[in-house]
């Protein structure tokens, strides 16, 4: 199957800075001691936000049954929002024995007849990959039949981690969509947003600013994305990777094939948002744009500072312990600092070396990088007199035992913390947490235990 990406190549990513230090592929999970999601989930994360495409999961019920309608990826698509719909072949024993190909063909026909999407993504899963259903051939024939792209996604769960799956999702888009159509017009400031999934509308916090600067988002992978747009992505002048390391192989290949340079940035917090906007302007290499961006950043920062002032007074002297993973170890830390909160510790157990460096940079010499947060965080709260614990739900008990405020940063957040205005949302949520008497009240001892 020629269209299948080479997994080994994807794992040996030369664009990955710290790859030199890593000899063995990082995707072998330990039986009985693994918590992460699988490649299918990663592929789903990177591609599901296309609301004008149907996402057909060719597998048994667990794959889609647990996972559809779990991510609030906003879309402005006026048609039926297909990201919030679930399609699966729900293969049965009969399909496992006699092949699920016929069912898959019929399922694609059904979707085209009833929903006429702009494209269909067909996801292989462990079972259908193992029984050898030829989704490449079926997609090829269906594409010819219906005249719309049919994208086979070879990211069965057992091929590796969530991160690898996101790469495979990117590969599928590159192989079957990018470069298959020409844009109606081109501007010198056309960019692709890569790895921005618009969860809770994160990207809408900064895309109006890009628009104001005359920077056009030609396409996205895949937040608020359109199939027609990603097909023209090869004509962009710049790839902007937003907080996602998983798609560096995609952008490297787009550089090799189409000469598109790329930059990687984050839109969390004031400083990172400003840095991000300036970096885009810089990379597009236009003097006027640079000047305009600086002015816009200055204006937005001033506007934000004014709104943040009352919060900053409130947060003065407040200390926080942060227990999360990945790029959040430093990006949320930076956002907290922007609010005037001192981040005394951040967990780096589930972070890459690159993230650890950035965390050190963000927290400074005094800050503690926790390698074993489960054990360390309670002690650190005592030692530093922290007022706030930001962590996943499991740490709630630590906060209650210590009688300090708790904010859940790992669970699906309800509203956006991205861009300048997102910082105001974060400030409001943290203020509410700090003022909330619930943590102290719940910590009360029962009358019979006094």
């Amino acid at each position: 199957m020629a269209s299948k990406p080479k997994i080994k190549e994807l794992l040996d990513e030369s664009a990955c800075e710290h790859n030199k230090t890593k000899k063995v592929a990082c995707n072998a999970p330990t039986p009985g001691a693994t918590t992460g999601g699988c490649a299918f989930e990663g592929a789903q994360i990177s591609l599901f936000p296309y609301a004008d495409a149907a996402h057909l999961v060719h597998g048994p019920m667990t794959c889609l049954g647990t996972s559809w309608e779990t991510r609030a990826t906003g879309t402005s698509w006026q048609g039926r929002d297909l990201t919030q719909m679930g399609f699966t072949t729900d293969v049965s024993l009969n399909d496992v024995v006699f092949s699920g190909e016929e069912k898959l063909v019929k399922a694609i026909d059904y979707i085209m007849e009833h929903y006429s999407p702009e494209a269909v993504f067909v996801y292989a899963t462990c079972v259908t990959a193992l029984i050898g259903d030829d989704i490449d051939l079926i997609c090829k024939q269906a594409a010819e039949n219906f005249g719309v792209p049919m994208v086979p996604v070879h990211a069965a769960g057992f091929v590796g981690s969530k991160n690898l799956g996101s790469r495979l999702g990117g590969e599928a888009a590159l192989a079957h969509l990018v470069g298959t159509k020409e844009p109606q017009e081109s501007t010198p400031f056309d960019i692709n947003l890569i790895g921005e999934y618009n969860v809770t509308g994160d990207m809408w916090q900064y895309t109006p600013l890009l628009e104001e600067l005359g920077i056009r988002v030609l396409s996205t992978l895949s937040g608020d994305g359109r199939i027609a747009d990603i097909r023209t992505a090869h004509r962009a002048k710049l790839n902007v990777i937003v907080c996602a390391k998983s798609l560096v192989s995609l952008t490297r290949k787009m550089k090799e094939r189409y000469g598109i340079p790329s930059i990687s940035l984050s839109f969390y917090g004031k400083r990172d948002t400003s840095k991000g906007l300036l970096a885009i302007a810089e990379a597009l290499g236009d003097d006027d744009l640079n000047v305009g961006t600086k002015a816009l950043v200055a204006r937005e920062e001033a506007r934000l500072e004014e709104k943040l002032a009352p919060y900053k007074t409130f947060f003065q002297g407040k200390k926080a312990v942060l227990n999360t993973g990945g790029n959040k170890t430093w990006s949320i830390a930076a956002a907290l600092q922007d609010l005037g909160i001192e981040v005394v510790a951040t967990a780096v157990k589930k972070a890459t070396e690159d993230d650890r460096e950035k965390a050190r940079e963000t927290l400074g010499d005094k800050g503690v990088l926790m390698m074993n947060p489960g054990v360390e965080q309670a002690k650190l709260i005592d030692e530093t007199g922290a007022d706030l614990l930001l962590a996943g739900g499991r740490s709630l008990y630590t906060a209650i035992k210590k009688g300090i405020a708790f904010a859940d940063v790992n669970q699906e957040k309800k509203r956006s913390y991205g861009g300048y205005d997102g910082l105001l949302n974060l400030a409001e949520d943290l203020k509410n947490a700090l003022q909330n008497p619930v943590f102290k009240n719940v910590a009360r001892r029962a009358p019979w235990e006094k």
Partner: protein
Amino acid sequence: MGEVIHKRDKPLQVNPFKLSQPMGATLAFLGVDKCMPLMHGGQGCTSFTKVFFTRHFCEPIAIQTSAVTDAIAILDGGDYSIVESVKNITKKVTPSLIGLHTTGLPETKGDDIRGVARQIEFPMVTVNTPDYEGGFESGWAKTCKALIEQLVETSEVVNDNKLVLLPHVSLQPIEIEKIKEFIEGFGFNVLAVPDLSSSLDGHLGEKQAALSSGGISVDEIRSLGDAGLVISVGDSMQESAVALQHKNSEMRHHHFSHLNGLVATDCLVEVLLEETGFTRPPITVARWRQRLQDAMLDSHFSLGQKRFLVAAEPDQLAAICQSLHDAGGKVTIAIATVDSPQLEKIAADKVIVGDLEDAEIAANEYDVIIGNFHCEAIAHRLHKGLVLRGFPNWEQVGNALKNDVLYEGGCYLLFEAANTASSRNEVKHA
């Protein structure tokens, strides 16, 4: 009873509310104290399942994966990944039981998990739950049966006060607790298998999520053989009851398709009176019966004016439809996740095995939809009333405390359904 369509030739599920067998198995193992559910398959099944239940219960969920990768899938028959899993789990924690259940992946290649488990010196219960067969309800039921078959010691004596309760998968923790208390009110010592009432219902443990905490203990399961009575609730649980009777032929069995509503609860009370020789139930039982009679009359008017669509696992589907029907609520369509003999008994005009696309297509045939979280979008799009029931409910908190069973829960369900039905009166359909 109306038309029942068991089988369809639709080639896919669109907006499915069906859930898989391994998920039901996981949940059942979580009803055993200090258990570590071990899902044999790719890591994603476990990760997805963990998040799924965490969000539903707002509780930490203990579960591990054998993390089968593509190479291992081809080379290994489970010997490596299962043995390694047990080794790695027991390095960190000491479960009283490891609940090994499969997914589609190892079943497709034919792993012999019982054989592998036999070679491991650790208490394990194994159950085959491929996700290309059955569903959530059967996964739970099979696991309950496996717990009984593989753990319960045979017995020839019976303790007439000891009663085993076998609840179906859709009963929430509070419902299991209420049924236990109800029966205990007649003087029985009740043990539920599995028992979510104490394991997935609001407690703040110091050591969260390492293992399940609360639930029936492994020792209690081992010694269920001397129970005088077993009560199964939900048709999916009948086989588990039979399995338990195989451990002691003296054990008597009473089966209830569900325990929703006045009629079904009356049947339970009759059985309990007969078994105990009492002439009257505890005062609170009589009091709640009066309240339910009152609730049925208070709610019958708005219930009778509206048409309902109910989408649920078969046992819960039968239960909810009967509750509504008893008080004059008209269920025009009942959609089941999977086929079940239960479907023939459901009090609805039409019963189908289907998905939520079916609910959309039938938009003109109902006013209120009762179903899981995924029904929210439909209710919103089509301007229908919504009562959230079943797994998952990620929309609301407090799921563990939603009580629809017996006289008491019957009141709450009818009031909620009636209030939802009447609050939609003002809505103008688009």
